[in-house]
């Protein structure tokens, strides 16, 4: 079967290793998002799959063929770049047909494929224009069209939506998802936007410092983050963290409150970080007292920023609330919404 298999891949620039032995298995037809902050190695990894960067060691397999030493043109991949990289001297039609002309496809076949891709992407009326006469969204679509006409084994996307304005980005995100559902081509999608990753991908690979922190289905990562890094990265607004010490089945937080540890982590001793997502904190009658500093309503939900002693925390409540800055609120949550991490290793307990 096809798919992309990344096996113990390393990348060094001189003595500096930037990718430290990454293993990722991407089954045929799956949409995988590589996410992580700037400099985590996600784009380098994508460029290694594309053949634009050499692999220092390890192997990359595309459709059961080791491609380590194959030039980009022989890997049967198509890539959409962050800045689209449209050929400015060619019309949209020529841009989209360029790869096929390079591969000596018959003219009528090129026209048929370009017309088909243009219809899918709504570009029929701009086929004879040059890229400079297109809007940002249209350029983005042309870049996707250029990838589609190839009918490649793998699509590679390098932050393709980050140059679009917020509204267009949401629209293109849905179009991209629809496109993948229609074509079912194996896709590797690099983004630093965890919302994009969550909404688009079948599976997410979270990277940090050249390592894979965790990989899994989007909601798996949300529900059971394996490390503090993933817990902080996935979810918006980010998870609240509280430092504390565990002993004899109880966790005493630095803010003075104490709680009983759930049975599965009751044996833990020492420094523990408790994580609670903003949407899992409720306003109640009892619970942890906090003083509201900022209230940000968006209509469907309200984000409250409050302080417990000196610690800033965020609470997301659905609908509207009548609390205001300076009010004291009481925060409640259920044990099942609590995430416990070893403060030293950052690993989930």
């Amino acid at each position: 079967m096809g798919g992309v298999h990344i096996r113990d891949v390393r990348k060094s620039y001189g003595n500096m290793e930037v990718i430290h032995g990454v293993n990722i298995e991407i089954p045929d037809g799956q949409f995988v998002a590589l996410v992580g902050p700037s400099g985590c190695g996600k784009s380098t990894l994508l460029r290694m799959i594309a053949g634009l960067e050499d692999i220092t060691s390890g192997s990359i397999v595309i459709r059961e063929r080791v491609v380590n030493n194959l030039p980009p043109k022989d890997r049967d991949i198509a890539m959409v770049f962050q800045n689209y990289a449209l050929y400015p001297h060619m019309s949209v039609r020529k841009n989209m047909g360029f790869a096929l002309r390079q591969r000596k496809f018959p003219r009528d076949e090129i026209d048929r494929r370009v017309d088909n891709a243009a219809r899918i992407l709504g570009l029929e009326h701009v086929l004879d224009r040059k890229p400079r006469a297109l809007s940002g969204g249209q350029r983005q679509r042309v870049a996707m069209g250029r990838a589609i006409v190839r009918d490649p084994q793998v699509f590679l996307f390098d932050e393709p939506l980050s140059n679009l304005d917020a509204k267009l980005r949401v629209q293109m995100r849905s179009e991209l998802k629809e496109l993948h559902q229609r074509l079912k081509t194996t896709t590797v999608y690099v983004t630093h936007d965890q919302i994009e990753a969550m909404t688009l991908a079948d599976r997410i690979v979270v990277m940090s410092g050249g390592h894979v922190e965790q990989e899994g289905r989007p909601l798996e990562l949300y529900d059971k983050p394996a490390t503090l890094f993933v817990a902080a990265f996935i979810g918006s607004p980010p998870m609240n963290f509280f430092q504390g010490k565990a002993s004899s089945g109880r966790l005493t937080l630095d803010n003075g409150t104490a709680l009983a540890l759930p049975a599965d982590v009751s044996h833990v001793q020492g420094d523990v970080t408790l994580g609670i997502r903003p949407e899992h904190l409720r306003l109640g009658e009892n619970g942890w007292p906090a003083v509201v500093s900022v209230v940000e309503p968006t209509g469907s939900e309200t984000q409250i920023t409050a302080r417990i002693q000196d610690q800033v925390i965020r609470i997301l409540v659905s609908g509207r609330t009548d609390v205001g800055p300076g009010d004291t609120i009481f925060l409640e949550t259920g044990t099942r919404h609590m995430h416990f991490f070893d403060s030293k290793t950052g690993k989930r307990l």
Partner: protein
Amino acid sequence: MHRFAVTHKLRIGGGIVVALLFLLPVFWMVLTSFKFQRDIFTTPPTVFFTPTLENYSNYLQRSSIPYQMLNTAIVAFGSGLISIFTGAMAGYALARLRIRGAGLLGVLILMSRGVPPIALAVPMFLVGRSLGLIDKHIFLILAYCTFLIPYVMWLMRSFFIALPKELEESAMIDGCSRFGAFFKIIVPISLPGLLSTLIFCVILAWEELLFAIVLTNRVASTVPVAIANIAGDTVNGANWGALTAVGTMTVIPVVIFALLVQKWLIQGLADGATKG
């Protein structure tokens, strides 16, 4: 708005003054070329005189100027085109390929331009003589390439660095080799830069005198050599009318060439390649 208009006028005025300063010698040369010998050194100099084409007709009929003009064109365009072709590729390599010591190499090549041409002319003459290439067009072309290629290389390097590298990467994914990406994508996009550099190269080679004097004799001799010979005519004295007529004839082809090519120097050809 008012302030903007004033600044704008000042700028245009300043531009005209600078242009006039630069064009005055050229204007005087063209004017003098239509004067009889007796009108050339009148005091004060006169702008109004009885014009003559004698200087042109004499030299076009009797001298080897038309032949030397052809030589100049062959050598200038030959060296310009070779330099653009090789210099652009070298500039691209310096801009894009990860070559160990590329920076140092680039600086060394540029430093070669710091050597006084006269220091190079003599060894070049010796090389040419031992190869039997003195007074051959090809040798003068190659000699000009030695100073034009570094020039092209550095100009084009900065031009290529400014282009998004994703353009070639995209082309290479689309099925091109590195060379294919260069010739099919980068060269068409860089046409304005390549053409303006070509104009400069042709002008530099067109007006070059030192190498032409040292490396040619009769067969491959160029117009600047002819002008130098007229100016340095110790037997009959310098014929200033002839000198300025030949000078004017030398300038005209370059001006025509620059005007012809100018329409291709469309700015912003690369617009729309990337985000916007």
